[in-house]
């Protein structure tokens, strides 16, 4: 019977904690930096969060299945570069975006193959991929950013249908799709099963290998999607958008969002909220003129505290 209690306690305790934190922060802001509440700033936060949120969605799928994907940002950078090059060469926005998604998925597939078929350790596989993709991007660009994408590209992706930046809408759409896949489909069921107990899942006729493979493909796809968003936002694609501070943010977002590093637990929505929190934190520190370095310390502390809590509650 203790399990349900644990589960409940887990959910509620985290919820309470996050809520409390959020309220505290907001009150503090109300007092110290009213700018925060201007719709324009809130809009900003959303835009800044969209890239992180999309990456966090990819990471969630992998982590729920019990793995980890360190190559997400590097993958994003490389896909952005390849896509931009294609876009500039052919002057076709559609093709460019397609290339970004395709290369993202392809890199993901490579990770998936190594993990699912070659039985390699996710951490190392994706670490190696991180280095390779990163190296390939700098090599490709001589670490000079690829800009001068066709204006049409920006017209499209910087547009604001219904007053909302397209980036935000894309992120929202991604959230809905992933949430649906994980929550409503057979595949989602299997992902949670594999993450919870691969042995039992296998006996219950879950094609463990294929499920693992697909989780990495999905996270790669998310990297491609993020590539589109970030390229539009920066007006250029460069190797250093994938620097390692991004992966830290992604993991932080997932951990804050209650995705368990041990697999089997975590909701896409949680990860997206986590991403928002990370960005809000940065934004608040900026508005308050607090040093970026302190924000790093806070971030690190938060990660450990939350996982410690997670472990304690799950008794893992």
């Amino acid at each position, binding site marked *: 019977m203790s399990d349900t209690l644990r589960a409940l306690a887990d959910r509620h305790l985290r919820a309470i904690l996050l809520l409390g934190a959020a309220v505290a922060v907001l009150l503090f802001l109300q007092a110290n930096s009213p700018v925060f509440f201007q719709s324009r700033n809130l809009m900003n936060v959303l835009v800044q969060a969209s890239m992180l949120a999309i990456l966090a969605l990819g990471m969630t799928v992998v982590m729920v299945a019990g793995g980890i994907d360190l190559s997400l940002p590097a993958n994003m950078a490389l896909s952005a570069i390849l896509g931009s090059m294609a876009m500039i060469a052919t002057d076709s926005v559609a093709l460019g975006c397609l290339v970004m998604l395709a290369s993202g998925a392809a890199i993901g597939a490579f990770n998936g193959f190594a993990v699912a078929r070659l039985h*390699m350790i996710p*951490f190392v596989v994706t670490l*190696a991929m991180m*280095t390779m993709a990163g190296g390939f991007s700098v*090599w490709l660009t001589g670490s000079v950013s690829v800009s001068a994408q066709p204006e049409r590209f920006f017209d499209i992706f910087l547009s604001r249908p219904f007053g909302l930046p397209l980036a935000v809408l894309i992120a929202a759409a991604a959230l809905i799709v992933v949430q649906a896949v994980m929550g409503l489909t057979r595949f989602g069921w299997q992902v949670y099963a594999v993450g919870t107990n691969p042995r039992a899942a296998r006996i219950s006729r879950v094609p463990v290998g294929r499920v693992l493979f697909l989780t990495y493909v999905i996270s790669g796809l998310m990297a491609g999607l993020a590539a589109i968003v970030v390229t539009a936002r920066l007006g250029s694609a460069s190797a250093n958008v994938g620097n390692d501070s991004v992966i830290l943010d992604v993991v932080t977002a997932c951990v804050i969002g209650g995705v368990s590093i041990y697999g089997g637990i975590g909701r896409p929505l949680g990860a997206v909220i986590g991403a928002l929190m990370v960005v809000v934190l940065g934004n608040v520190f900026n508005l308050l003129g607090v040093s970026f370095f302190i924000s790093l310390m806070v971030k690190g*502390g938060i990660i*450990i505290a939350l*996982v410690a809590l997670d472990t304690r509650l799950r008794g893992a």
Partner: protein
Amino acid sequence: MNTLATRLRDGALTHGFPLVLLVMVLIFGGLAPGFLGLANLRGMLHSMAPIVIIACGMAVVVMQGKLDISVGSIGFVAMAVASLLMTEQGWPVGLACGAALVIGMALGALNGFVVVVLRVNPLIATLGTMIAFRGLALQITDSRVIVLPESMRGFGNLTLGPLFADTVIALAVLLAVHLLHRNTGFGRTMTAIGNDEQVARRVGLPVGRTVFLSFVLSGFLAALGGVLSAAQVGSVTTFLGRGLEFTAVAIVVVGGISLFGGRGSILTGVALGALTFEIIRSGLNHVGANPYFYQLIGGLVIFIAMYAAALRLKRPTDGA
């Protein structure tokens, strides 16, 4: 299955990597005569020294199936404080470096606490401290370049006979850690934990204490590595230790030390791994290849080594 193929495969797995290394050396040597020169060898051993030391600490942790990716940041924090003590507090260099090592151990102990007592997954725990420590160091130095005093910089190029001082230190550390691993109860317990933590508990081994101490040791070595690398560059910059954690993991992994723990030799593993990456870097540099190539090849090497490791690990099981 047919034994010849298996024997070939096993042979390739056990001796393959040194062979690949040798081939690489010959190729580079052929393309750039200077590469095989004694001067270059000395130079390579010089540049390797800090990362070798840090990798030793990493190996100790990995030997138990754990990870410590905060080593780079630990080195940075330790050296940041030390440099300020030297330049602004006027501490003698030796004393300041001592302080750096103590700080390293303290931060390592913090990692150990989080992993052993709070039972946080080592990867996440050290990921968190990696960020936090870096922030701390940047805050301390306000991300300035701190130029080290002459005596400290001199040490960076101090030579003992044919070798550089830090090369000697690195070799000493490598040997010491190797002996610790091979010839002490602590080291054997480490390996036992790496083999199977549950069984280790059942047999009544001090699992918690051993893991904790290994993180302290890793922190200590990270700080030492930081000191040496700062001495080489002659100043403390925000680049100190950046990305070192990943290089260290890569070295350990390429050196054939299994991330599942319990397998591999620290002496040959770390030496081989570190040499691999240094040869690639220096070699590409000598043949005047596009320097951005380095990362790409590095990643490939990691991947190949890991694939070999995966096969090696599979072998016992597929027999039944």
